[in-house]
């Protein structure tokens, strides 16, 4: 199984969630993060003084899927999160050793 981590624009979350539900991905974890890539942040002006804001708010989505679903999940997330403008984000794929459902003790794919 693999963990698909995606850093996306916060306002694309609902779109991504709906799209993932459409391909039977049952759960996800969402974290509020700050970061920058080539987008580099922006400038704010208060009382005439300029402030460079280097870290912008993003959302980190993590979903764990069976190996067979990975490519579909990545494609789905990318499609739903994309706006075509700088700052859309990135997706990373990690290997997962195991997964356990806390309530029942199921392991492996049954836990997903």
């Amino acid at each position: 199984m693999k963990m698909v981590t995606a850093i996306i624009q916060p306002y694309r979350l609902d779109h991504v969630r709906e799209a993932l539900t459409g391909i039977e991905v049952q759960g996800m974890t969402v974290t509020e993060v700050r970061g920058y890539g080539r987008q580099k942040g922006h400038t704010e002006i208060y009382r005439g003084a300029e402030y460079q804001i280097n870290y912008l708010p993003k959302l980190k989505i993590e979903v764990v899927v069976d190996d067979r679903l990975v490519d579909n999940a990545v494609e789905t997330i990318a499609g739903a999160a994309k706006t075509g403008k700088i700052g859309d984000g990135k997706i990373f794929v990690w290997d997962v050793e195991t997964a356990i459902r806390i309530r029942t003790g199921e392991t492996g794919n049954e836990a997903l």
Partner: protein
Amino acid sequence: MIDSGDTAWVLTSTALVLFMTMPGLALFYGGLVRSRNILSVLMHCAAICCAVSVLWFVCAYSLAFADGNGLVGGLGKAFLTGVERDAVYPATGIPESVFFSFQMTFAIITPALIVGAYVERIKFGAVLLFSCLWLLVVYAPIAHWIWGGGWLAERGVMDFAGGIVVHVTAGASAGVLAAVLGRRTGFPDQVEPPHAPWMVMVGAAMLWVGWFGFNAGSALAAGSDAGMAMLVTHLSAATASLVWMVIEWTRFGKPSLVGLVTGTIAGLATVTPASGYIGPMGGVLLGLAGGVLCYLAVDVIKRTFRIDDSLDVLAVHGIGGATGTLLTAFLVLPTFGGIGLAEGVGAGDQFVTQLIGVAAGLGWSVVATFVLVKLTQGLVGLRVREEEEIEGLDYTAHGETAYKL
């Protein structure tokens, strides 16, 4: 004779003006600092409110308003001795207890205004010690000079609600304190922006509403003076806000919320000394003048003189209060809708009088504040250590964190 209408209005105004500090000013300043210092700012305002209240009762009210000489009141009314429950404040229809409380809320907010100069780097002990000393040495005497029958009152200085007593004194003192205390680490290039612009607006809105008590309440009566004072206060606030909005829109392409509400405060401070004497057009004109001059002042003080008066107390309150005080000499004239000057007094004469008032308030504030700051520095120190400043005062000085994210 106690007039229930007057009394009801001044009682209400007292609540409104206390609300300006608790929590109006606290939130206005709080939103402007970094998130790791917001609690320290709220603490400064709250603690100053409490300390000043007690000191006001112990002796400061007496020093400001009891009989004494031209420079300071005596201690005849310390602990409110001799002030009966149903004593009426002279030349008014309100109980002296109400006058005491109303004036107390002014005494509270004035040192609280100075907080803006020293945020994010001052020692809490220094805040308390300095504020208490400043109340007794600067505020009470100057209040006496202008409102307690002192020498400036005898010269005919017109300061309806505190252009000199509150804004010039606080502004000038803030400038001195900021200069001696030194700049924040990283000023000006690595300072962080306001952490909660929304909070700044909420605070400013509370200040605007509360200012109706500040200016209209200073009529000490519920009548047409209060009515017009409220009206001109509002017009000045609105006009100055629009001035800042237009300036920023033109200069930067985007009018900011923080800019608009800073204009609000500039307009309110500027109209304060004139509020009981001028007409509606005067209110608009003061909003224009105060709006423009305070905007320029922010730049001059921070960029040209590089004084880190962090929240622009001198630029907004000092310059605003002085501008309004000086322009009162002209806007009081019936041509501008004002109540007119005394028989035989021309606008030019009054302008000189106003100038003397501003100069005296400014001069004593600067000299005395310098001495008090040095004294405070010697007794308890002024500045926190650099690591504490970097970590933030909320945790290092008060053991608390504002946002558990």
